């Protein structure tokens, strides 16, 4: 146990001391913030206003709350996975620098080493993502707060699960990397690509049906949907309170990926949790197994 905690402390310290790795992990959220500041906020806003049924007036506060909560959910969904990938690059860097050899000559089991990387990555990512949740909530309090008390713990649970998923996925992919060039390549692909496939830059519902079906197989999609549902739940309740018909609200939810359909069938929230939780367990198991089996 002391070996595992020592590994976790070491890995976490190294991540936060390595400024390159730390700031690179924040690239995607920063890109998203820049996109939001330059044009995404306006796109979200105008698409929502255009979609309003005739005769309905919505205050600027509600629209700001809706656009803001959509941004926060996108930001968190991206952070949970991209920060995990970058934080987990330590396992590749250890191969490159030879530090891994220094760890594997000790009597510590390979499964312990693997868990050390997994937990420290999860811890580092959770620290950053929880700070991001806090910052997001402060932002929403300023632009338009409609969340209920029960939404907040659910957002933390969603972020926790999505971080566990991102960490497990990155653990398996990074396991097969062994050079600085591969680190850069994967980092770039994840940073640039994940924002699209998770629906952060544009809603999945705006993609072609085929692509939507492909993305419905990715567990991360459900993580994004969960966060989005819980950050936006208060705004939807407000819309309902001011008289929006439930069909209209459902249409809005469809349009911004709060509702996910698996080949036409709507996936319930409880199922989303099962998919996300189950995939975390499965991916962690695969990660531990490939580590234990690895000895050239």
């Amino acid at each position: 146990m002391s070996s595992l905690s020592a590994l976790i402390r070491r890995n976490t310290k190294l991540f936060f001391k390595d400024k390159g790795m730390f700031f690179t992990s924040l690239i995607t959220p920063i890109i998203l913030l820049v996109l939001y500041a330059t044009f995404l906020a306006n796109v979200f806003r105008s698409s929502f206003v255009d979609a309003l049924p005739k005769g309905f007036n919505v205050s600027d506060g509600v629209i700001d709350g809706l656009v803001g909560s959509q941004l926060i959910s996108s930001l968190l969904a991206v952070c949970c996975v991209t920060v995990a990938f970058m934080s987990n690059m330590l396992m590749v860097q250890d191969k490159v620098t030879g530090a891994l050899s220094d760890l594997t000559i000790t009597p510590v089991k390979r499964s312990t080493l693997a868990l050390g990387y997994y937990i420290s990555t999860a811890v580092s990512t959770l620290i950053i993502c929880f700070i991001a949740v806090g910052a997001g909530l402060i932002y929403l309090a300023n632009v338009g707060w409609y969340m209920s008390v029960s939404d907040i713990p659910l957002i933390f649970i969603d972020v926790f699960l999505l971080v566990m998923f991102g960490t497990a996925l990155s653990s398996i992919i990074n396991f097969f990397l062994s050079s600085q060039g591969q680190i850069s390549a994967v980092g770039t692909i994840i940073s640039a690509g994940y924002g699209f496939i998770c629906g952060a830059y544009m809603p999945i519902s705006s993609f072609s049906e085929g692509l939507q079906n492909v993305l419905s197989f990715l567990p991360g999609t459900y993580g994004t949907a969960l966060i989005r549902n819980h950050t936006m739940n208060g705004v939807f309740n407000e819309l309902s309170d001011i008289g929006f018909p439930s069909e209209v609200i459902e249409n809005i939810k469809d349009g911004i990926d709060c509702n996910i359909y698996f080949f036409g069938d709507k996936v319930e929230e409880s199922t989303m949790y099962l998919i996300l939780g189950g995939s975390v367990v499965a991916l962690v198991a695969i990660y531990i197994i490939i580590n234990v089996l690895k000895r050239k």
Partner: protein
Amino acid sequence: MSNIIEISNLSKSFGEVKAVQDLSFKVKRGELFAFLGLNGAGKSTTISIMCGQLKKDSGKIVVDGADLDKSVDKIKSELGVVFQNSVLDKSLSVYDNLKSRAALYGISGNAFKDRLNELSELLEFNGILKRQVGKLSGGQRRRIDIARALLHKPKILILDEPTTGLDPQTRKTVWNVVSQLRHQENMTVFLTTHYMEEAADADYVIILDSGKISAQGTPLQLKNTYTGDFITLYSITEEQVSLLDKPYEVIRDAYRIAVPSTADATKLITKYPDIFTDFEITKGKMDDVFLAVTGKRLTGGETK
């Protein structure tokens, strides 16, 4: 002296490349054992297998009575390894590095502090405990590498080309520490090196070439087997040297004659006492042994 390492019929291939081929040797407890060979000779592969980092294809490895196939963790706790390049975390302090590595051997709390005090005194790094490893000089870093290898009081210290790239003064310091450790703790030292003078100081040397043992023995045995003696003659003329009817080499202020053995040298001296008034007899060097055995010359980490 009993054997602390026994390796028999060890083989390992990477695809078509036979890195180690049917290697068998023994290392005695407390001795300085040297593995000599070019890059790719199989030295690092053998060490990696011993440390449980690579799987062997065949053969048997027993370290201090423990079979690698059955007790890899026990063997790992008896080995301390100084890698060719420092593998500590450069952005962490010396203290954090040593603390995190010690914990992997179950050493923490007061046990760690006591061991750290012992090692910092022995290797004189007390003043740099809080400094980042990446900001240390080459010599300082090497001392910390050695300290890391010794944290768990291993019975065998593996030094993988430990002095490559170090200045002569630091090399001397490293060897003084290693020598002190051997005598204080009866530690076995398993050395791989490119430096002939380091191999010459070993108790036993194995020369590896293309994954096979080309020669083995004490430095004296190797020199006697694979090289002759050299007689250096001073204060004579070339005409006098040619009277000996032996091939000779002209050096700055003397002539050097190669003879097959010390006995032959003695015969020559007694036959020509007038010529041998100022001379010295020296054994061949490990460079000559290596050249004779492998047909390759190796100096300070580079082949020629």
